């Protein structure tokens, strides 16, 4: 007997017992439709979340913070916790001690020009922009104002949207800058037409590279980790004492040898800068208090050409849903970061940048790039963990709801198995006749199994048709509800029917129904034809 003929016979049998078939189908349809809809809804939800994530620039961005040299071995003695403690507590304390030891002893990894070069060479990295601003004096025509100079990435799309006129400088344009609209205003350029006139003009920039006077910040850095042991007031006082010592070296009663030793020490600790360089820092709270009188400046003068004028970002524009890089920096003049960095590195004792904003080309590169940066000892803030978590959570939700629907399908299977057994008992004579005509056990078994399998496939097909028909309506209802709750419009698709999900549902329905008919099929196959026909 050919399987096709058995299948036809099975279809005939199902058709000839419409009531029973309809009952079984109902169970399969309800559970398959539930399964399909939950699959579609969870896929819709996870696709929606992923769309939001993928369409967001913020999942391509990350913040880099200076860290410590990785794989530093901490001596066991440093983390030893004495006393009778419960193991969990001991562990916490040991971890705290370990962190403290690393902060005090491990070599710091700052973003030096070497490190920056390495970072930019990493596959997938689109841009790295150290976060720092340099104070400067700007002169245009016969007016001047004080302002700040900030590095940007020329690939940064957000700055493009802020252009009031002109364009972003080309990458080979070493002098091209963007001017802030308010700075333009203070320099006398107010109307849009006046702003247009600015394009191509040159602007003089006197960059403040810091004071030669040693400052608390320098001391702080020289002291390194030890600085954390001293409170700020003491440090500030200590700092001014050292400054005084450095300045009034000749007035103190030290021998020439002693003075030389102190000078050398201070110099090596960068507390007293070499004659032509000094520094300020962007990280220290103390730095902002530092005095920077004009007479002590060692200026660096540059002439830039204005290529565009940019608007100030509004507060909301500044920070996004998954943004880790912080709000964009405000500045008077924006310049290609690669042009600005050498100015920072000119400052003596500058250990390298402390923070930087990075961006990868595609968001699927984020995780691997972040991994590489962390391996270098840098600390990274990014959406990687959040995106992973979101994917994991939507996956879990899918599984949980899918398991529930599967349970419903299994309960339906019990019902199907039950009606099938009853039907087999009713149809006992039929199977007896078939066997008397030469049907083998296998043929009878296959017939009943196929009846089950076809019920499953038919049920899943009906369920698919119903689900697709109902989805738009259900979608509207859900959308209405979601929009009410979100208090904003929601444009993501809610039900997404995926070929894999549909196949899974068909497979499950067919398998479950086939298994449900396994016992009835076996019963039918094992009937004694003589006894069966007497019924």
């Amino acid at each position, binding site marked *: 007997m050919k399987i096709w003929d058995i299948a036809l016979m099975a279809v005939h049998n199902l058709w000839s017992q419409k009531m029973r078939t309809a009952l079984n189908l109902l169970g399969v349809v309800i559970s398959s439709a539930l399964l399909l809809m939950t699959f579609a809804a969870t896929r819709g939800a996870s696709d929606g979340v992923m769309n939001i994530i993928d369409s967001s620039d913020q999942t391509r961005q990350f913040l880099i913070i200076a860290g410590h040299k990785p794989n530093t071995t901490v001596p066991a003695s440093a983390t030893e916790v004495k006393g009778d403690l419960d193991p969990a507590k001991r562990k916490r304390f040991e971890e705290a001690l370990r962190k403290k030891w690393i902060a005090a002893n491990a070599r710091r990894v700052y973003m030096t020009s070497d490190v920056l070069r390495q970072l930019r060479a990493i596959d997938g990295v689109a841009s790295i922009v150290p976060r720092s601003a340099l104070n400067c004096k700007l002169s245009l025509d016969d007016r001047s104002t004080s302002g700040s100079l900030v590095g940007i990435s020329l690939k940064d799309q957000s700055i493009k949207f802020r252009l009031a006129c002109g364009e972003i400088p080309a990458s080979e344009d070493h002098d091209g800058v963007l001017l802030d609209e308010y700075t333009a205003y203070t320099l006398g350029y107010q109307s849009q037409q006046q702003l247009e006139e600015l394009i191509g003009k040159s602007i003089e920039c006197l960059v403040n590279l810091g004071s030669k006077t040693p400052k608390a910040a320098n001391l702080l850095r020289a002291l390194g980790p030890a600085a954390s042991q001293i409170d700020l007031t003491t440090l500030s006082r200590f700092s001014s004492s050292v400054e005084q010592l450095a300045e009034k070296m000749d007035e103190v009663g030290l021998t020439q040898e002693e003075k030389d030793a102190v000078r050398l020490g201070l110099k090596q600790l960068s507390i007293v800068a070499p004659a032509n360089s000094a520094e300020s820092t962007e990280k220290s709270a103390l730095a902002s208090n530092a005095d920077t009188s004009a007479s002590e400046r060692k200026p660096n003068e540059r002439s830039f050409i204005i290529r565009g004028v940019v608007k100030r970002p509004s507060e909301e524009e500044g920070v996004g849903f998954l943004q880790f890089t912080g709000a964009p920096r405000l500045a008077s003049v924006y310049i290609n970061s690669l042009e600005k960095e050498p100015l920072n590195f000119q400052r003596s004792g500058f250990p390298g940048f402390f923070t930087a904003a990075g961006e990868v080309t595609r968001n699927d590169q984020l995780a691997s790039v972040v991994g590489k940066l962390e391996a270098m000892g840098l600390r990274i803030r990014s959406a990687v963990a959040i995106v992973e978590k979101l994917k994991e959570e939507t996956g879990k939700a899918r599984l949980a709801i899918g398991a529930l629907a599967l349970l419903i399908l299994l309960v339906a299977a019990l019902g199907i198995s039950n009606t099938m057994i009853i039907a087999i008992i009713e149809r006992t004579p039929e199977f007896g*006749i078939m066997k008397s005509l030469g049907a083998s056990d296998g043929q009878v078994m296959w017939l009943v199994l196929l009846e089950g399998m076809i019920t499953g496939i038919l049920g899943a097909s009906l369920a698919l048709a119903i689900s697709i028909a109902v989805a738009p309506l259900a979608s509207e209802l859900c959308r209405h509800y979601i929009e009410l709750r979100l208090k904003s419009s929601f444009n993501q698709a809610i039900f997404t029917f995926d070929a894999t999900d549909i196949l899974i549902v068909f497979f499950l329905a067919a398998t479950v129904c086939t298994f449900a008919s396994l016992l009835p099929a076996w019963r039918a196959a094992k009937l004694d034809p003589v006894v069966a026909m007497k019924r």
Partner: protein
Amino acid sequence: MIHASRLTKIYGDTDNGVKAVDGLNLKIESGQRVALLGRSGSGKTTLMNILAGLDRPTSGEIIAAGKSLFELSPAEIAHYRQTSVGIVFQSFQLIAHRTAIQNVELPLILSGMNAANRKQRVDECLERVAIEHRRHHTPAQMSGGEQQRVAIARAIVSKPPLLLADEPTGNLDSLTADKVTQLMLDVVAENKATLVLITHDQNLAKTCATRTIHMQDGRFISDEIHAEATA
């Protein structure tokens, strides 16, 4: 040719159960038309079921189609029923939800014949038993005589060498019964098949069989071979 030896069938336990068939030896030559007579309960049906491979004897053996029947696997016995035996039952035993065509077609489906050949064969057989006009009717829509003709068509559709009929006319009025019997004898003659016909009609046995066996309490009490029957 069928050769049965020392066939015994006991219902219930071996010592004090009912001996439906009691140590029978039987040799049926190809082409013989055997009438099996005997009162109700004498063991005719039991013997027929054993010959058909539907039932197993408690002891004894049957050599049919050159094979020892009860040493075959279940699948092989199924194949024997499919290819070597056609059975006509007293109560027709048609499948209620299948039409005449579909009932007659069933043995051919089981043997794996393709649809085109099947249709031709079924049409021939339905025509042969003069029931073409009922081809799309289900058993419930047919008279007893019509149903039995469909059952005969089903029994001969595979052209089996052995046709077994267990009181095929028992449920029919005498006029219809005669027609059905005649039909069966005709098709057996055409197919050159062996016939075992269970009946309690002495005259029928006389007129249509080449051999008459009387059964009582599971044994043969007489076994006569006639000259060529007049049928």
